């Protein structure tokens, strides 16, 4: 099988404009591999200047989020058999983010939004001798929230985040925000909610649901945003 791989290339020091570079790879027909393995293969055998991020190569670190044939995903857990169409694969960086080089994007704004939601436990009670305990039921409320690896696949698939990345927190940040709002050990619920009630931070979500479609961990940021809206309603009406 011959596979045509088109990869977005851009080095701001060298190129005036980004462009798609073609690579041709031959495989035995029954071979399958992850998109990340393919990138390594191209880097090792055809073009050592190709740049991309990767670390754990098993869907835990969230470094290799990219746009794979038009859909955001993690290259390390995306098998070619699932994404290749008509023997062609197009790889681009995460959409809407400034490109540092090739498939590597500048995540500064994404992290700035994450920082805004205060992603840590706030508790004004005296520190207990051992740990702060939770009932199994309270702990269960964090399922589907704590698993987020901040790969940015969801936020960079969201048009509201493309237009207003400085003001809209984005699905990833809001999922994390709800993770702390839902935590029975956190005592800053009011303060957290008052930081979210403006017209942009949460309410720029128009329910497009790209975030739910692309999350490589199968999480549901739109549902978390719905819960935040509900908490804001409870708090303010």
């Amino acid at each position, binding site marked *: 099988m011959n596979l045509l791989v088109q990869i977005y290339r851009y080095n701001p020091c060298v190129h005036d404009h980004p462009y798609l570079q073609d690579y041709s790879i031959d495989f035995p027909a029954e071979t399958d591999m992850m998109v990340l393995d393919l990138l390594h293969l191209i880097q090792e055998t055809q073009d050592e200047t190709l740049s991309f991020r990767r670390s754990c190569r098993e869907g835990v670190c969230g470094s290799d989020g990219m746009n794979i044939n038009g859909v955001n995903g993690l290259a390390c857990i995306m098998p070619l058999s699932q994404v290749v169409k008509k023997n062609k694969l197009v790889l681009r960086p995460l959409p809407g983010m400034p490109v540092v080089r090739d498939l590597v994007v500048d995540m500064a704004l994404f992290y700035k939004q994450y920082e805004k939601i205060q992603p840590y436990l706030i508790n004004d009670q005296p520190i207990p001798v051992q740990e702060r305990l939770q009932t199994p039921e309270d702990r269960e409320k964090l399922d589907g929230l704590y698993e987020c690896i901040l790969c940015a696949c969801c936020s960079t698939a969201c*048009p*509201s985040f493309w*237009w*207003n990345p400085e*003001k809209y927190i984005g699905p990833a940040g809001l999922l994390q925000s709800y993770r702390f709002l839902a935590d029975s050990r956190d005592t800053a619920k009011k303060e957290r909610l*008052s*930081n*979210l*009630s*403006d*017209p*942009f*931070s*949460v*309410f*720029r979500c*128009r329910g497009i649901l790209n975030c739910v479609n692309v999350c490589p961990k199968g999480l549901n940021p739109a549902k978390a945003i719905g819960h935040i*809206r509900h908490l*804001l*309603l409870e708090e*303010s*009406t």
Partner: protein
Amino acid sequence: MLNNATSLSRSGLRDWLIQRATAIILSAYFIFILVYLFRHPHLTYYEWHALFSNTWVKIFSVMALIAMVLHSWIGLWTISTDYFIARFQGSKAVYIRLAFQGFFALLLLIYLLFGVQILWGVSS
């Protein structure tokens, strides 16, 4: 917290609630009008006049008109702050955005005043 001087209520939650409440009023009004038209296939001027002479229909129509104005403003404001931003139009963005918002604020105000005048002008 982020503030915005031209959003309807300056609160995301309040805008969101108003948009949903006005959507319900508009849906109810359009269903009412469609049902009326469906039940009067050979509608005459006199029947149409009689409908809008009814005080409750006037109130419902004005409510729908106000709902349309509020609903449109929230939607148009959102569009203007999505697409007319420095990222796309540079330093001109703020002027384009204000012109867009000003034009539609004026248009919606004219709709409202003109609409109220027409609806309340129907003789009983």
